[in-house]
């Protein structure tokens, strides 16, 4: 059995301000080699993707060229072309941009809803909490994937905004439940009682007293969710029920692999997109795991 010895850290109080939650997390992240590498790779990918997509002409890329159908990688088309003679590399860039942006949008929307609902339910408790929890319980037992597909299939005037809305309608529940549980725990602490006796209004207690204490969990949860949401989006697009065709995603490129000939013989069409999804999700997950360790003081590296 190893005994942990508490080394008193030499802290110079006069010069060193107490670190905020964010700066602790940042420090931990940089100290974790795997997470740091992930962060660098992800930043480079995003820089290239967003940088290049400014210069790429989407019209040009989606233009059909029957003279260059399924041509293998060459100097002109770095990753070859698809069944319509369209440049795969260009589609990869635009697809990655769309997938990431939409994943981020869903994460932020569901995060905001989950935060508000979770804070309100957890802080006020009582019947408000009861009603909200019953609704969440119900949404959580719905067959998510099938319902999203049905919604996508029957919604009139389907576009990116409706896709984000449909996804968000289901995905806020997990966050709301997490935030509620944490708020319930914080609410029992005396600093909340103190604020009440000091005459601080409830909304201020929620926003300025409780919320800062939840910030690290929220960041961890949003990071891990971002990876998950990119995965769900590209998966649905792969099945044909994600982003509309006017907005190509990484899933669009992968979906060409439903044609066995493409899957077997034309790897350049679907494999790069698959690997890019994989790399992005791995990076985000590694960053998220490092943040999770940082948020939990017992697991910090030092």
């Amino acid at each position, binding site marked *: 059995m190893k005994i942990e010895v508490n080394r008193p850290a030499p802290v110079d109080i006069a010069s060193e301000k107490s670190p905020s939650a964010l700066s602790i997390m940042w420090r931990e992240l940089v100290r974790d080699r795997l997470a740091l590498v992930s962060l660098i790779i992800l930043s480079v990918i995003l820089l290239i993707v967003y940088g290049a997509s400014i210069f790429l002409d989407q019209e040009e890329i989606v233009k059909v060229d029957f003279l260059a159908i399924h041509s293998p990688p060459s100097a002109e088309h770095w990753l070859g072309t698809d069944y319509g003679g369209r440049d795969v590399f260009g589609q990869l860039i635009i697809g990655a941009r769309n997938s990431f942006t939409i994943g981020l949008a869903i994460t932020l929307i569901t995060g905001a809803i989950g935060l508000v609902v979770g804070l309100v339910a957890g802080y006020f408790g009582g019947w408000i909490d009861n009603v909200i929890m019953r609704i969440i*319980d*119900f949404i959580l*037992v*719905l*067959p*998510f*994937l*099938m*319902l999203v*597909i*049905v*919604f996508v*299939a*029957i919604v009139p005037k389907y576009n990116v905004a409706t896709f984000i809305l449909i996804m968000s309608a289901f995905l806020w529940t997990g966050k709301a439940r997490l935030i509620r549980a944490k708020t319930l725990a914080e609410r029992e602490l005396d600093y909340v009682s103190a604020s009440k006796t000091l005459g601080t209004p409830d909304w201020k207690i929620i926003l300025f007293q409780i919320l800062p204490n939840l910030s690290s969990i929220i960041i961890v949860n949003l990071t891990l969710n971002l*990876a998950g949401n990119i*995965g769900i989006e*590209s*998966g649905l697009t*792969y*099945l*044909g*029920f994600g982003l509309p065709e006017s907005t190509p995603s990484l899933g669009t490129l*992968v979906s060409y*692999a*439903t044609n*066995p000939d493409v*899957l*077997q013989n034309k*790897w350049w069409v*679907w*494999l790069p997109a*698959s690997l890019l*999804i*994989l790399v992005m*999700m*791995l990076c*985000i*997950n*590694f960053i998220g*795991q490092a943040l999770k360790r940082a948020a939990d003081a017992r697991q910090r590296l030092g």
Partner: protein
Amino acid sequence: MLKFILRRILIMIPQLFLLSVLIFLLAKAMPGDALTGQLAANPKMDPQTLEEMREKLGLNDPVHIQYIRWVKNMLQGDLGLSYTHQQPVTDLLAGRVGNTVLLSAAILVLTYLIAIPLGVVSGRWTNTWADKLIVGYSYIGYATPLFIFALIMLFVFGFHLGWFPTGGSVDIQVEEGTLAYYLSKLNHLMLPALSGALINTVVTIQYLRSEIIDTKVKDFVKTARAKGVPERQIYWRHILRNSFLPIAAFLGYEITGLIGGSVFLESIYSYPGLGQLFLQSIMQRDYSVVTALVMISGVATLVGTLLSDIILSAVDPRIRIE
């Protein structure tokens, strides 16, 4: 305990009701109705007769009456008529359900077969090379989307190496009931089931590992060790038994994941099950089949959560209190 089960079932009733209302409304929102199929089969039907048939089938009745009729029919096993296949939806599902159940069961069995040894090894001998490998695998598996992993598996083992068939659930030539038939079924099952299980299992591995690590520093384990209980027995009697029970209970919660997974796996491996049928039906706008499938998976998920809740409460009495 009995009281808890009864109350838990009582909670399920409004959920079931809401689910059916939601799906009924969705079905109403889908373009076309029960007659669209008839119309497709017989395009020359005149509008007057069509309207009469509508009236006869009660499609002009108030919504709530239609809903009650829909539920009644469903309870009697009448899920409507598929217009693309021109046969009752119930028959259509009956022909497919076996494959999906087989695939899901195979995934579950493999999931536990992989998770238990890996989780135990990694939790018992932490920070060894084996542990680091297993943790690495679980991180990667956790991050990898199922459809990409399944595609790559199909590409490598199906097409490139040719070890497994690349589609279908059984060879056409083999005769049903023979040994060759079952072997062929198994052969077709392996790759999709393995793809599902290798991804599905990582959550259980991570759970087992952290559970064992948490338990092995608990006081009752230290006491057992201090009394001189052999290490093997400590793990078997004190640690693993405590960690395995909740895992068994998670079985019901897995159903949600399995339904979603089967949609992807069956589509990638062209495996003729309910997931594939769902995608085909929605693309062919065969909405009576879609509605039936969503309703069935909804009920399956509800029952799964119910079972898990009950098993968990039997295992861990603290849950029963609320």
